[in-house]
């Protein structure tokens, strides 16, 4: 498969460049926007990496990303309950979320293996129906840290838990490099690079290459004695674990843990980001995720102040969602055309 940059990427890149020019014309602080683009990029980057194992094993897009996100939220809630702080607190949260991620991932995999060929639609509704179950859990779970609970009146955890006293921005503030006016969050970028390397490394191992082979040609693998469902399960669990770690990174940058319906809003943007990066849905590379996340998030970052400047603040969100869904639709059509050839 050639990794040459194709027309959609050129259009999106040109659009991003256009937005930069427009921002400059409107007199905005370009160095600050560039600095912001790095944090936004990593903030969402790990969530996008959660697409890769599933795509490569031929399971399709991880529309059930909320499952992984919920595992990460559980991990973070436990970390806050135990009052873990700083970098150790962040790593503790990631570690604590691995167990729920593996358990939920196994269940998720079990269901997806029943609906081979139509995983996308099933995954969407697994996500949708899982969220109310978790809302129930957030309401009745026996957490006791006052900072996590509703201040007065209502029961349960609050929808937005501040990480200020725990591990908010710990990665963002690690080794910040000043290049003129641009500040580069090296710690954050290094953490992202480490996750990318781990995923890259996994696909160089034996089980990684088996996974790629299953994605490539399931029938052939079955005939050569590979247990397909097992490989798919590994991929789905892996995606779920990465998703859990992804929301931890997201939350520490954002400064808040968002519970209840918030996990639902991450899956479509993540799918769309990897598609923008040039993945057509058969094989996903790290480069697709990296390029796609940067383009997608930077466009979103730039469009917000521009929309404010032209007095229609909601417009950036609307345009972002049109791009998100438009790209996914485009990818569906393109995959179909490829399949027919």
């Amino acid at each position: 498969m050639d990794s040459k940059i194709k027309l959609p990427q050129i259009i999106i890149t040109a659009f991003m460049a256009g937005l930069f020019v427009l921002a400059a014309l409107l007199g905005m602080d370009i160095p600050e926007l560039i600095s912001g683009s790095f944090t936004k990029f990593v903030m969402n980057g790990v969530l996008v990496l959660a697409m890769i194992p599933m795509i490569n094993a031929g399971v399709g897009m991880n529309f059930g990303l909320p499952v992984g996100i919920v595992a990460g939220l559980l991990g973070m809630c436990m970390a806050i309950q135990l009052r873990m702080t700083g970098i150790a607190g962040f790593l503790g949260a990631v570690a604590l979320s691995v167990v729920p991620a593996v358990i939920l991932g196994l269940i998720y995999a079990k269901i997806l293996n029943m609906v081979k060929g139509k995983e996308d639609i099933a995954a969407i509704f697994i996500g949708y129906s899982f969220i109310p179950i978790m809302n129930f859990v957030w309401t009745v779970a026996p957490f006791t840290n006052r900072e996590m609970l509703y201040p007065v009146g209502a029961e349960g955890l609050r929808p937005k838990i501040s990480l200020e006293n725990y591990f908010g921005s710990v990665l963002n503030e690690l080794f910040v490099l000043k290049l003129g006016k641009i500040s580069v969050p090296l710690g954050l970028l290094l953490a992202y690079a480490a996750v990318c390397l781990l995923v890259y490394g996994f696909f160089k191992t034996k089980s990684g290459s088996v996974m790629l082979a299953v994605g490539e040609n399931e029938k052939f693998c079955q005939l050569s004695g590979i247990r397909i469902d097992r490989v798919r399960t590994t991929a789905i669990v892996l995606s779920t674990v990465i998703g859990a770690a992804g929301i931890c990174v997201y939350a520490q940058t954002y400064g808040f843990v968002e519970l209840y319906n918030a996990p639902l809003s991450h899956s479509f943007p993540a799918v769309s980001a990897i598609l923008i990066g040039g993945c057509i849905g058969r094989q996903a590379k790290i480069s697709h995720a990296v390029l796609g996340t940067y383009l997608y998030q930077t466009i979103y970052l730039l469009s917000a102040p521009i929309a404010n400047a032209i007095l229609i603040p909601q417009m950036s969100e609307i345009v972002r969602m049109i791009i998100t869904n438009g790209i996914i639709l485009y990818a569906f059509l393109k995959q179909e055309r490829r399949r027919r050839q």
Partner: protein
Amino acid sequence: MMKKVRKDELIVPVTFIVFSILCFFLSGISFMFLAEQVALRFIRNIILVLALIFPIMAGMGLNFAVVIGTTITQASFIIVLNFNLTGGRGAALVLAVSLVAAAGVGCVIGRLLNKVRGREMVTSIVVGFLANYIYQLIFVAGFGTVIHVFNKKLVLSTGIGVKNMVDLKTFKEVFDNLGVFRIGEAKISMLLLAMIIVCGFFVFYLMRTPLGQKIRAVGMSEEKSANIGIDTDRIRVIVIVLSTVLAALGQFVYLQNIGSLNVYTEHLDTEKFACAALLAGGASIRKAGVKNAFIGGVLLHTLFVLSPLAGRNAFANASLGEYFRSFVAYGIIAFALVVNLRLERKGE
């Protein structure tokens, strides 16, 4: 015509009935109040549920793109109000514009879905989302910039963008004046009620005409239908056109009955709740009928009315009941998908 009812068709409705009875006793409300609430919601919603039947019978699964039909009606209301047309003439124009536009858009969606055979459901979800945001773009940013505003009452004080809430009382009155049907406190226009009955008969009857036979044939096996000379692409487009038009009509009835329009939120998730209703009535993603729509509409709305009340009464927390009902709505779709797709795979 009497067929034996299959066992698996009964599982879901019976589960709903059991839960509803349980919630009814937990909620402690009067039966009259329940009947009134359910009837009102049922009448507002049923045509949208009927709109899902044709695509299922044509083998295209749940058509989540029906939400586009509902946005078209909302857009027609705003556009007609923008030209300061009110009363009966306005309402007739809204109906005409929305049905024609829905037919046109349905044609486009149908062609699109023909290009993604085998993945119609997920595509219809994405298309629905896309249409929602385009709709928002038109009314948030287009109104007052690209589109000229004739009716200043519609837009925000900045002059750009439609307000969150638009009053449709002028249209509601027309229908209410033609005679109303009372259920407890609620009033339902006779004309709207007649529309619902006509739609029910229309769907029921159409499935028994030659066109209906063709739709069934395409749903059973596209390959075989193509062999006996049915233009499957055309049938599938017709199915989606009918579905979108019915959805538009359904939203017309709904908004007429409410008398106001939440411009940016009214249509959200309606398609998923309609799907849940149909499935609650014992339909599958392969087979559905008017009967399923009517039974499911009653069952789903009963549970929807009762569960928050039951939650508040039994656990002193209404949100627990609300979580339960969203779980039911989404869970039933997930359940139907998994069960059906699994059966299909076993059959292969």
